[in-house]
């Protein structure tokens, strides 16, 4: 499988990778924050604005029709990407955060009542915590937390014990952005279904790495961001089961989402437009299709194979460096490695690596409760994508070893 893709050829499709940063060739290991964009995505953006920029739907002219066709073609492409049954089950949003908020506001305010329980996990991104906290506060509902082990895996037994008829909604991250843990969402969904709870999967970190099939998963909602799957920023999607979306009230009011407006009463448009008030982000939506086509062309299995080999290679090399502690050692992981270096704060580590052209992320990764569970204030995190190479990992490991050496010598000097 691995031999079927040529990483150097793939790298050529990402112009941003071909540069020096601080005098060193760029090593971009911050893909869980946002991935880089291939030429075809950049050209699609350019092509839209140069060729057929026009507002979508209802337009009586050729450009409007062209823009609408391209916009709706992306919806169909996203449907296929997540394996949904119906195109109208795909709602365009700004990204994962807006999609979760849409569900929390619309579904939550219509169907969650006082005393109901909403369950999230201890490894959620703030985006999948705060909207539910707000909802619970407003409705008098109760937020329950699925605990996480010291390896960074969910405690499924504790989850099943927390479940009851009171549980109305389970919102859980498919893959942890901080730790890379792949959660057993099949088990979560199956257990939640037994008590009649709806399930939302935060797919921001699963969508870039492996195949998604919302029908096989049988989740009620799945959300993701375009910019993490080699697409533009500012566009993402919410998948929701048709019958649930139809029962939900609109999230925002305005243009596009109405059927008829009088001062006495407004009737709402049909799915998916009911949830897409205002002029949408047309250009970025159009180019999202090209991002998905890029992924399809490489093949998700090939991407997963390559990233997994990088993960194993980097993990092994990093373990060999004295003073490095990996945070999150789940059995099933994507290519995300969180770590700490003894005696060196992760902020300092990030700056020292940056001086060598190596881009990683440092801090709490918008998962402060998870960091609290581990008793730390953050980590350094590398996250790898299809265009990363073993040579880049060698460069990174060498830089990391140099820093470790420097600080262990300093410690000896002091003691």
């Amino acid at each position: 499988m691995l031999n079927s893709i040529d990483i150097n050829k793939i790298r050529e499709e990402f112009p941003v990778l071909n540069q020096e940063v601080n005098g060193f060739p760029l090593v971009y290991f911050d893909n869980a924050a946002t991935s880089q964009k291939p030429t075809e995505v950049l050209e699609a953006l350019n092509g839209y604005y140069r060729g057929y920029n026009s507002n979508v739907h209802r337009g009586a002219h050729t450009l409007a029709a062209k823009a609408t066709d391209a916009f709706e073609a992306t919806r169909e492409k996203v449907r296929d990407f997540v394996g949904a049954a119906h195109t109208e089950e795909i709602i365009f949003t700004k990204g994962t955060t807006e999609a979760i908020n849409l569900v929390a506001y619309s579904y939550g305010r219509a169907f969650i009542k006082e005393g109901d329980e909403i369950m999230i996990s201890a490894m959620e991104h703030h985006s999948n915590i705060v909207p539910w906290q707000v909802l619970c506060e407003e409705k008098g509902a109760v937020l329950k937390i699925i605990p996480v082990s010291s390896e960074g895996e969910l405690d499924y037994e504790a989850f099943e014990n927390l479940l009851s008829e009171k549980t109305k909604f389970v919102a859980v991250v498919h893959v942890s952005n901080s730790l890379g843990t792949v959660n057993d969402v099949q088990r979560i969904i199956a257990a939640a279904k037994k008590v009649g709870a709806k399930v939302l999967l935060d797919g921001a970190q699963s969508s870039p790495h492996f195949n998604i099939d919302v029908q096989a998963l049988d989740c009620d909602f799945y959300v993701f961001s375009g910019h993490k799957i080699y697409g533009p920023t500012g566009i993402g999607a919410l998948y929701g089961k048709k019958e649930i979306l139809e029962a939900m009230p609109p999230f925002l009011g305005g243009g596009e989402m109405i059927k008829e407006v009088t001062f006495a009463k407004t009737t709402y448009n049909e799915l998916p437009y009911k949830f897409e008030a205002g002029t949408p982000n047309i250009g970025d939506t159009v180019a999202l299709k090209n991002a998905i086509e890029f992924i399809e062309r490489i093949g998700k299995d090939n991407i997963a194979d390559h990233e997994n080999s990088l993960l194993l290679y980097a993990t092994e090399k990093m373990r060999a460096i004295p003073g490095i502690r990996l945070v999150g050692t789940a059995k099933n992981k994507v290519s995300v490695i969180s770590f700490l270096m003894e005696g060196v704060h992760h902020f300092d580590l990030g700056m020292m690596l940056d001086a060598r052209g190596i881009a990683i992320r440092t801090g709490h990764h918008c998962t402060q409760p998870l960091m609290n569970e581990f008793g730390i204030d953050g980590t350094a995190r590398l996250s790898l994508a299809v265009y990363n190479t073993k040579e880049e990992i060698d460069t990174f490991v060498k830089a990391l070893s140099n820093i470790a050496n420097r600080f262990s010598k300093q410690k000896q000097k002091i003691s």
Partner: protein
Amino acid sequence: MSTSEIQEEIIDEFSILEGDRENTIFYIMELGEKLSALEDSAKVEDNIIKGCQSKVWLTTDFNEGKVVFKADSNTAITKGLISLLIRVLNKKTPDEIIDTDLYFIQKIGMNQLIGSQRSNGLTAMIKQMKMYALAYKAKADN
């Protein structure tokens, strides 16, 4: 030495590094290591400078009309940054501290080196030090 003389000295030292990012970072961290440690009892919430991403504790004393600063941080680079500020402003009168234009920061290209987030933190440190000076001045004037 006046605050300007100290600033010129710092500019001289940094010029030897010729803008090399890595060496500059290491040098800043070394400067931080030389800063005398703050006792743990002073590392409390009240002494934390707000607006910094890293934790920075700052304490002051007023001795013979001059402000004595002590500081520490949980990150080495930030500790180096505040050590530079202390080097310029330590044991100066409140008026000197208030009136000092810390031009060395721009001259050594610090903002480009540390980025906008850390620059905001640096601004917060300076603001806090000047606030202390203002408070001591007000107290002395009374």
